[in-house]
């Protein structure tokens, strides 16, 4: 239908890209300059390429309670545990709700649904109490478990699962696949594009957590990178802005890598799936 490129649309999109990229560029350029210059407010938009080593230097920077590389690792494993945990738990609960008739099925469904309306901030005090009773404060499970239960992902999986044709379920039954076999051999592979998308969303969600990790960890060993960055800029000594900016850029990388890695997956899944 369209013959010539739509210049207006491109212009708007380009403007959007610039708007989003600008702060990141400032951080990148700032990382390569001296802290003193930045403190003076004399930040240049042209990076000094001689000083790219600052990113390596930042890895072992430890203005907060732990070195940056350690906090990156904690964040990575936390996000990974949350994303995988959410997918496992919600896929299983959605499986139960979508494929089985059991007493109180709809009650269970609505209970899960209702928790959607309670943001983590609202239930944070009781959650803290529970974790404390379980002696999980300052532990990795305490950091991740409360964030794993997910109504959103359960609902999403349910929608995906009920769209699976009945005939496919029946064919599997005739082939002799029990429920868990069907789940593993058919349902999960059929939904892998959705799983990839969900993994990306939940990984980024986990990576960006701030309030709960802040509450539940008191020792430096479990500090996440998001907490670390905040701590770096709240001290009263002179702030090494170049290192802080380098750390910020480093903290952006894992989510970006996950998006890129998963993007290939779910595009491939979308093009070959036919249901």
């Amino acid at each position, binding site marked *: 239908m369209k013959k010539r490129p739509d210049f207006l649309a491109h212009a708007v999109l380009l403007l959007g890209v610039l708007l989003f990229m600008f702060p990141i560029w400032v951080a990148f350029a700032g990382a390569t300059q001296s802290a003193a210059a930045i403190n003076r407010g004399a930040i240049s938009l042209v990076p000094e390429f001689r000083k790219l080593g600052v990113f390596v230097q930042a890895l072992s920077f430890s203005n907060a309670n732990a070195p940056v590389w350690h906090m990156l690792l904690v964040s990575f494993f936390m996000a990974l545990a949350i994303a995988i945990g959410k997918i496992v738990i919600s896929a299983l609960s959605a499986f139960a709700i979508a494929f089985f008739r059991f007493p109180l099925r709809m009650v269970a469904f609505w209970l899960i649904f209702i928790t959607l309306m309670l943001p983590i901030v609202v239930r944070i005090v009781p959650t803290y109490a529970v974790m404390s009773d379980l002696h999980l404060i300052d532990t990795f499970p305490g950091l991740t478990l409360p964030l794993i239960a997910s109504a959103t992902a359960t609902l999403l999986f349910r929608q995906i699962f009920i769209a699976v044709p009945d005939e496919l379920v*029946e064919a599997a039954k*005739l*082939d*002799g696949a029990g429920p868990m076999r069907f789940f593993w051999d058919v349902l999960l592979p*059929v939904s892998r594009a959705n799983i990839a998308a969900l993994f990306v969303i939940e990984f980024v969600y986990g990576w960006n957590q701030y309030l709960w990790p802040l509450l539940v960890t008191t020792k430096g060993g479990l500090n996440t990178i998001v907490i670390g960055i905040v701590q770096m800029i709240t001290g009263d000594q002179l702030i090494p802005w170049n290192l802080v900016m380098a750390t910020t850029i480093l903290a952006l990388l894992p989510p970006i890598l996950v998006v890129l890695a998963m993007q290939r997956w779910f595009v491939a899944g979308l093009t*070959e*799936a036919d249901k």
Partner: protein
Amino acid sequence: MATLELQGLAKSFGNTKVLHGLDVKLDDGEMLVIVGGSGCGKSTLLRLVAGLESPTAGRILLDGKDITHVDPSKRDVAMVFQNYALYPHMSVFENMAYGLKLKGMPKAEIAKRVEEAADTLSLSALLGRKPGQLSGGQRQRVAMGRAIVREPKLFLFDEPLSNLDAKLRVQVRADIRKLQKRLNVTSLYVTHDQVEAMTLADRLAVMEQGVAAQIATPLEVFARPADQFVAGFIGDPSMNFCKAVLCAGGHGAKLAAGPEVALPGEASWGPEGMAVMLGIRPQHVVIEPGTGPLGFAVALEEPLGSEALLHGTLPDGEAFRIRVPYPAPQATALTISLPAAHLHLFDAQTGKRLEIA
């Protein structure tokens, strides 16, 4: 290899009765085709036999063994689904092998069976492909292959051709029949297409609203339909019906459209004045220019190549069709006669076929 017997098989969903107690017995290697309009309970019947639903009443015997409550995968039946139900993420080979794998069959044996089936169905070159990369006809064959490799006692087909285009359908239809005969597997085949039903069936079961209106060979069903529903359902173009009452001591019938017609046979068809429905197939109506007893007003001519179908009405307004050799007579009013030998009589009240004792 196996016989299948359904005894009083009935199924209700809540308060809606879908099947009203079906009795039928299939001989070894027989293909029974169940034909009926959509929603009459055909799929439900197959799903009961497959074990995907459990019946409200009745029993299913396979080879004399009661399998009414046996798990679907242990019934030794294989089903070909309407939309094929292939696993989209598995290759053609894996699709066919999956059931065997779950049975714990050795890999070599699985490969042998799948390759054999693929060979029979000309799928050998496609074994590595995913269903998404296949045409409709190829997918259909994979679905067949998945059924064949299990070497079941019973095949179940649920409208397996309804997603193919007309030309392919004719060919696959013949392929299915050849294959079924060669493997000699007892089969239940469901369709709403009467041509498919007539050509495939050893015996035909015409279903109406959860009841088998007639179970007989295709030719028997065509020649002596058990009731008015079957008569109207089987045959294309479908049978004409005209209202009439018996007269002349039950040896003739007076049409609502006017004239009296002679009825076949020597005996009386019933008491005078009894309301009946006369049936005659469009190809059996005879045009007798000027001399025929019955008037016919032509409303539309459909040329079909070597034949033409004339749509029109009888003098009393009843719709009527005539099939004639091409070219059709170019007239808007014709006179026709209804040869006694080709008349079918049905009780106007019950719709049942009348026979002279």
